[in-house]
């Protein structure tokens, strides 16, 4: 399968590392021969229809910061033009997320569909804002869209619900979908530190972003919740429909109070037929949702299987790339049928 990689940041680099690492395994076990024919970033692209040297691409990006510097095959070219002109089976869309407009990722996805390419995306923005439109266009063009990595990173949330729990009616989903807020609350609880001190430390460690607004305000969780609501619960909502309260007001004293009562405080996203909210909640200490550190967790309440809980890593380059790889494999298997 020929791949166009759109976005060459942390996740994009992780995808190349994983493809490099698993290339032989995928070929031997699944008969899947992956070839990356184009890599795009904001500087341009490297394009070789015979397949690019992934180690070289990673080295060039590391040294120059620009994939356009790739020897012989690097060029200044727009991403839309690459998607349109380069023959490929799958576009892996991991460009930066914009949860206010969904762009430019939305346009990349639509262009990929128009040119009959399947899409694997880790991008929350377009899916949290235009889920119905995007999935509709994919269907219209007869191509597959998969987006496991957009919610929970490596934690298999969407595919678990849609495939493994197929046949069940999912009545509710609740969970911790943002590792940064979980890290902050865990650290505040454990060390009785105030919010700003822990946030600063998390930023220094690279756990929280320089601009942590989307994480701590709950917007990041809300985007993921909107995707789950649409894709698993069959609702038609956007991030703007989510009732939202972040963690900025949580104090060490409130965590202590909660602890004494047998609870932890966690930022929980919850969707049911009627509810769509992200807010801090009291979670009993021995409850499966009380996971620590930067872990993510999701609990499905279903009509047949009752409660199912999945815990995993919510972020990280290789971890997120693992979800992307599983989507690529799934497309490969579907096309073989």
């Amino acid at each position, binding site marked *: 399968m020929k791949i166009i990689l759109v976005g060459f940041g942390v996740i994009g680099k992780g995808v190349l590392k994983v493809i490099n690492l698993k290339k032989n395994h995928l070929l031997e076990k699944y008969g899947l021969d992956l070839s990356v024919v184009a890599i795009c970033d904001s500087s341009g692209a490297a394009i070789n229809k015979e397949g690019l040297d992934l180690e070289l691409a990673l080295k060039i990006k590391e040294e120059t910061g620009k994939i356009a510097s790739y020897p012989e095959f690097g060029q200044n070219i727009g991403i839309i033009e690459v998607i349109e002109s380069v023959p490929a089976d799958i576009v892996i869309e991991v460009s930066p997320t914009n949860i206010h407009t969904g762009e430019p990722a939305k346009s990349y996805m639509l262009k990929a569909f128009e040119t009959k390419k399947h899409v694997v995306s880790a991008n929350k923005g377009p899916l949290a804002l235009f889920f119905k439109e995007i999935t509709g266009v994919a269907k219209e063009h007869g191509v597959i869209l998969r987006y496991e990595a957009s919610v929970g990173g490596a934690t298999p949330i969407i595919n678990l619900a849609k495939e493994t729990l197929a046949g069940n009616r999912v009545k509710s989903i609740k969970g911790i979908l943002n590792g940064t807020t979980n890290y902050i609350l865990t650290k505040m609880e454990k060390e009785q530190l105030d919010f700003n001190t822990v946030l600063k430390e998390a930023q220094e460690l690279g756990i929280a972003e320089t601009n942590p607004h989307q994480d701590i305000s709950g917007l990041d969780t809300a985007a993921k919740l909107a995707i789950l609501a649409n894709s698993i619960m069959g609702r038609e909502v956007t991030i703007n429909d989510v009732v939202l*309260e972040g963690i900025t007001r949580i*104090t060490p004293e*409130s965590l*202590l109070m909660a602890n004494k*009562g*047998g*609870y932890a405080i966690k930022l929980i996203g919850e969707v049911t037929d009627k509810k769509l909210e992200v807010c801090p909640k009291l979670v*009993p200490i021995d409850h499966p949702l009380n996971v620590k550190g930067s872990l993510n967790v999701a609990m499905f309440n279903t009509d047949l299987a009752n409660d199912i809980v999945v815990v995993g890593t919510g972020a990280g380059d290789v971890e997120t790339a693992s979800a992307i790889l599983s989507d690529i494999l799934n497309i490969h298997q579907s096309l073989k049928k």
Partner: protein
Amino acid sequence: MIFLDLELKDSPGELLKALQPISSAGANIFSVIHLRENKTDDGRVPVKVVLEKLNEDILNTIVLDLEKLDVVVAKINEKVKKINFDVVVIGHIVDTDVLDTIDRLNKIGLVVDLNLTMPTPEAESSAKMRVIVDSENLNQLYEEFEKISKEKGLLFIKSC
């Protein structure tokens, strides 16, 4: 038969006190199971009482009498009657008239416990409230939380 799930304070004589309104009403008790090892979050002791079938008026009188004695009637025939839960509150709880907050909540349910901490006069306080409410009034209580939250800038953190 009628199955009552009660929650008693964990102190001597409470079980005897709880059985008094039942025997006074002339109801026949088939069994009493004391579940000391399954204490509730607020330290109460659950007790399951099985009674002979009664008419609804007598049963209602028993329930009212039990509640007057601070016995929580958690379930009647497996149907949840009372819910007791904790809520953590953050904000200027005292400055925004904590008595008014409690009074307003007491019109719908009952605040039975309040722990409050005020780190400094300027900083927001934190409190943990234990509230008991009829299950059918839970949504109304949540709506009141929201109203108070908007009016007084308090953040109510509910159970998940």
